[in-house]
């Protein structure tokens, strides 16, 4: 149980979805606030949003991660079930400002919270990748490659803090 400093995660074998499940040592209401309050969400997710999250709302987001501040994207909020479930759709890898992604399929991101003995179990699922054109995935992959090392360093910093 000491291995919870870094979220343990499971990745499904399917090419269509990614699932992460981990436990947070905080009450469910606290974790919920970090999801449902767009300012809190933006703090750990490294984005700023132009309006609060509400069902059906299209929220304009800008990355706050250093070096990526030029990247903007839309989140379409799907469902909000207080303290239990939050979901939105977006265009994965939509990080090229010159591209128009609006006609492409979106993936669905779902957060589910459950109370467990040590705090709150968080499940994150992103699904719908099979509908994203292969060429787009390839392009996104190349663009992500550069940021890879920086991301790894961020995580290390976080874990060691």
């Amino acid at each position: 149980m000491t291995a919870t400093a870094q979220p343990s995660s499971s990745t499904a074998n399917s090419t269509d979805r990614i699932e992460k499940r981990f436990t947070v040592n905080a009450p469910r209401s606290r974790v919920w606030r970090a999801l449902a309050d767009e300012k809190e969400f933006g703090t750990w997710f490294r984005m700023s949003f132009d309006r609060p999250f509400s069902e059906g709302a299209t929220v304009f987001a800008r990355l706050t991660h250093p070096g990526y501040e030029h990247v903007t994207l839309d989140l379409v909020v799907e469902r909000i079930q207080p303290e239990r479930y939050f979901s939105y759709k977006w265009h994965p890898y939509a990080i090229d400002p010159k591209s128009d992604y609006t006609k492409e399929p979106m993936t669905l991101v779902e957060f589910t919270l459950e109370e467990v003995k040590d705090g709150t179990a968080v499940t994150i699922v992103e699904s719908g990748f099979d509908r994203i054109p292969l060429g787009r995935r390839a392009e996104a992959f190349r663009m992500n490659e550069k940021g890879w090392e920086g991301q790894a360093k961020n995580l290390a910093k976080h874990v060691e803090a």
Partner: protein
Amino acid sequence: MSRRSAAALKVNEAVPVFAALADPTRLRLIGRLSTDGPLSITRLSEGEPVTRQAITRHLETLGEAGLVRNVRRGRERVFELDLKRLEKAKQYLDVVSAQWDDAAARLKAFVETHP
């Protein structure tokens, strides 16, 4: 960091595959090879708006990425897909997966340090 480094290594391996696929002509060639099986350069050039030489170069790029190999059939050379290698394309999910690992770590750190 070890789990992470291992993931990064896998990602590096997959980069040539994705670079090779990130081109509309090459994607089309892959598509034709997957539906029509092994084909000669002559057949692969049919209907393409670019020269046969350009098609040859694209096939070389795909060959270097290990996606396509050429084999001798009688007197001609034909190109076929290397399906095992193409499976690697699935590794794009590893990148997204690692990003969610990062995000999950940040969410955890955030709620635990801001009660």
